[in-house]
């Protein structure tokens, strides 16, 4: 049972990181960014490119497989994905904002971006499954019948650091405070002297950085393929709704809950139910608590 709990937390951490980015885009830019899965995939592939260049086994970091090259690649992929999303915002979403396009136009545009990016990934990297390394790390026994991989510990640690950093950023930094203001009332934020366009840029940067981290970590413990973004976007949306779309912390909680429920679904009935369980929870939450666990009732604007 504890083993499934640990597996669920590891899986949930990755979903949570992706869902936080989704939550920021949803609340600040006010649309459901269906391309967030592909941003995550881009992060994973950029890391793969750098890990391959740097080579496996250089610069070991204790028992963590790949060591420093993995962390270095993650930072580099954060930079690349940020530049990519800022570029897409500049040529597409900024123009839609100027035209005061409807929310549905933004969502369809995001769908278009996701399809395009997925195909570009296939074109460049091919459609086959790829791996960061074929090294099989040794699990650490933490109690009788319960083992954890050092890489899983690293994922839990990075998620914890990311969530704490995000909390400090949103509550202590001026940009974080501005972001919360824009998320609540963009018109009032503007008349308070906030440059809303700059806040939008920072929201993209934050969301893309977290997606790059989540994508790299996910690919590190599983594999890469061009469909990985599409496969992850659905649990990420489920996490967002379960936790509450208006709350960034809700996205973290939702991600962990979805990860845990998927893990226990595997324990109870087999891997075939893994995908179905998150949607069952999603439907139950939508029926009984539509605002999610930590969310507030949404405005109609």
């Amino acid at each position, binding site marked *: 049972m504890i083993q499934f709990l640990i597996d669920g937390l590891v899986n949930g951490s990755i979903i949570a990181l992706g869902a936080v980015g989704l939550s920021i885009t949803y609340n600040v830019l006010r649309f459901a960014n269906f391309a967030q899965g592909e941003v995550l995939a881009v992060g994973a592939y950029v890391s793969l490119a750098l890990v391959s260049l740097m080579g496996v086994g250089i610069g070991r970091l204790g028992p963590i497989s790949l060591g420093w090259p993995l962390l270095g690649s993650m930072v580099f992929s954060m930079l690349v994905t940020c530049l990519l999303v800022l570029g897409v915002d500049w040529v597409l979403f900024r123009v839609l904002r100027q035209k005061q396009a409807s929310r549905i136009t933004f969502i369809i545009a995001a769908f278009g971006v996701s399809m395009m990016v997925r195909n570009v990934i296939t074109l460049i990297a091919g459609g086959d499954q790829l791996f960061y390394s074929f090294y099989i790390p040794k699990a650490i026994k933490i109690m009788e019948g319960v083992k954890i991989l050092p890489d899983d510990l690293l994922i839990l640690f990075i998620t914890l650091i990311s969530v704490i950093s995000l909390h400090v950023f949103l509550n202590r930094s001026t940009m974080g405070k501005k972001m919360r203001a824009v998320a609540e*009332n963009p018109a*009032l934020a503007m*008349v*308070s*002297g906030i440059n809303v366009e700059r806040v939008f840029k920072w929201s993209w940067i934050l969301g893309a950085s977290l997606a790059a981290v989540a994508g790299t970590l996910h690919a590190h413990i599983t594999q890469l393929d061009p469909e990985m973004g599409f496969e992850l976007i659905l649990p990420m949306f489920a996490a967002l709704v379960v936790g509450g779309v208006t709350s960034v912390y809700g996205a973290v909680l939702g991600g962990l809950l979805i990860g845990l429920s998927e893990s226990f679904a595997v324990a109870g009935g087999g891997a075939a139910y893994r995908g179905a369980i998150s949607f069952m929870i999603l439907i139950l939450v939508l029926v009984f608590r539509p605002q999610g666990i930590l969310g507030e009732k949404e405005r109609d604007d």
Partner: protein
Amino acid sequence: MSKARIILEVDQLTAGYVSSMMIIEDVSISVREGEIVTILGPNGAGKSTLIRSICGLVKYTEGKVRFRSKEISGLSTHEIINQAIAYVPQTNNVFSRLSVLHNLDLGAIANPDFRKERLNRMFQLFPDLQKYQETKAGKLSGGQRQMLALARALMSNPELLMLDEPSAGLSPLLRRQVFEHVQRIHEDGVTVVMVEQNARAALKVSDRGIVLSEGKLRLEGPADELLEHPSMREIYFGAAPGN
């Protein structure tokens, strides 16, 4: 008063939310430093659209706006606010999920100098805000929210404060308090332009009034003369029978 320099000049402004239907047409007004000016008019006259246009929230198709002789037409809203202009919308004028203190901090973004001094002054003007500084703005009463909205706007130390129906939806007692606060803010050297439906109470504290009807400037003059002006009745009751 008439010798004071012009702080705000609106020149032949035509604006609307969609290009096919203009809400205000060819409106020109000027406001002198140190004045309290009330913009009056029946519902749908274009009063709010006028001050929203000045703030850059509504794009205008024709006309110019100058603040302290500098043209601010075409600037984005945050750039206009950074010129020492503050605006308080009629509704949704506080960040209700954020604390009172966080709201006041956001008000100081346009001008972070002397933030502490401004904060102390706001707590002097509105003692309730100090008491509830850690409370979420959404939990305040209607009157306290209006005070917070005024204080948030004043945190940037503006030279010009624009208020959109500050007394709307308040009880007679709170309404009186709002106008007393407007007077006190004015005594601090702030020029005030406010849109109001409550003509009598607003003109009592104003130097001048401007009357709009159907998007056009109909009348302007000293506050104490305007209420008795023979055209006032016609503008109000002619445009909105039964009011």
